């Protein structure tokens, strides 16, 4: 289902390195299932400087609101504007169409410290 380059956080974000400087961020399939029908995304702001673990924004479903966090430090260089009108993209296609932001990251070591897909799956079964 997913790209081998994908990395994960324990807060259920995924990170896809696009090149040496830039990575795309979203929430995992597990996270979107937990939230249910997503109705609104309060996304990060363009050019916002972030430190890893900072809150980037809030994803709202009918009966829940959940923050999502920056997995990497750097600058927000792109946001998925489609989500403004179609937040359901996160439910329908969390790893592609439902991406949230792109970050120009400043510390590649943070990327290395993230979970692989196997680690993440193991973490999920532990949580169960």
């Amino acid at each position, binding site marked *: 289902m997913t790209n081998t380059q994908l990395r994960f956080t324990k807060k259920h974000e995924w990170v896809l390195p696009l090149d040496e400087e830039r990575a795309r961020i979203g929430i995992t399939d597990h996270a979107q299932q937990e939230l249910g029908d997503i*109705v609104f995304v*309060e996304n990060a702001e363009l050019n916002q400087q972030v430190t890893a673990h900072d809150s980037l924004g809030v994803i709202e479903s*009918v*009966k*829940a*609101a959940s923050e999502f966090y920056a997995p990497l430090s750097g600058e927000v260089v792109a946001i998925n504007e489609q989500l403004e009108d179609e937040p359901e993209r996160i439910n329908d296609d969390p790893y592609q169409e439902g991406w949230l932001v792109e970050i120009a990251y400043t510390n590649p070591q943070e990327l290395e410290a993230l979970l692989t897909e196997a680690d993440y799956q193991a973490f999920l079964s532990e949580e169960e």
Partner: protein
Amino acid sequence: MGSTFRYLPDTAQDQQAMLDALNIDSIDNLFDDLPTSIRLNGELPIEKAIAEPLLMKKMQQLASKNTNANQHSYFLGAGTYDHFIPSVVNHVISRSEFYTAYTPYQPEISQGELQAIFEFQTMVCELTGMDVANSSMYDGFTSVAEAAALAVSSTKRSKVLISQAVHPESRAISSTNASGLSYKVEEINLLDEITNLKELQQKIDQDTAAIIIQYPNFFGSVEDLNQIKQIAESHGALLIVSANPLALALLQSPGHLGADIVVGDMQPLGIPMSFGGPHCGYFAVNKKLMRKIPGRIVGEALDANGKRGFTLALQAREQHIRREKASSNICSNQALNALASAVCMSALGKQGIRKMAQLNVEKADYMAKQLAKKGFNVINRAPFFNEFIVSLPVSARTANRKLIEAGFVGGFDLSIDYDLANHMLIAVTEQRTKAEIDQFITVLEAL
């Protein structure tokens, strides 16, 4: 158990049957988990029960000790007004399907309440010129504080500027609110009886989240929102307007003049003075702030058969979901009073509300002109709605003593919050007749 109470239906037999089912001897066993050290020994030291007929008599006696608007003519306003309330209002809100219901969390059996609130939201949007209104707040004053908090959180700035021509209680509650959320409230002084725009221009900066203006202001005068909006906009600050909804029947809507948040109290439209509460705050915003508005909000929705219905919407903003991340903790609101004001606005209608507002303007204008003719100084420089300041030869307190003897409740004593000795804020609603106004002036002349 001892005596019977009409709200407690259990007979001795009922109780025994329930105790038997639970396999216990007495109700006391159900309180066995209360540590002995905290149990009450003996009765609560409060007055014994009073039977209904005696209690009604007692309450009537207590009520009769209060000078009220059935006997006296009120020229007192300052945020709470003696307006006409059509009989239909009390009849509708006395329907117990409305007043004995909880918050409409089960839409299938709450369509009445939900639709009525949806209609209320629409009426508030119409009057304020805003895109979205919520289902009500505690009162107009707390709405001002909530608006300030919303401005601070949405702009991520740390200070609000509030005009001294905003009601003293709005300012007081905002400063309590600010001490909790750690933002600053700076006041803008008056120039005569309106906001000093020069000072506003000097105090506004990149850290200003919002300017808060009352419209008409505390002294009845209509502030020029156009100019204030320009000042706000040039610094990226929001404009918060606290408005009297009745005045908005005639005055340009704050939304049209660029307000970002409009709040106020529906009391002038269908809600009794009731010693200051319960009244009904309203809260309206532009589209950008829709998902940040505090409190409950009703939206239209369809069922599986495509039938139109109404339900609580955008609940993810609210405290029961956001918990410690919530930007407002409001839960209960003033729904029944929102219903009352919706009924009043429906009864008045598009023409009636204008006529009522026009009567207020005309009567206040008449009174101010008569006072001026008799040599009193009316202070307002800006045009006013239904309230104005007059200076007196004596203290307002002394004047009010004379007035009450003559059957009038006089105006607000401005020595209290503004240090304006011998000044009174007079309100003239549609309820006041020319004869009452003339007599009131006669009493003032004799001071």
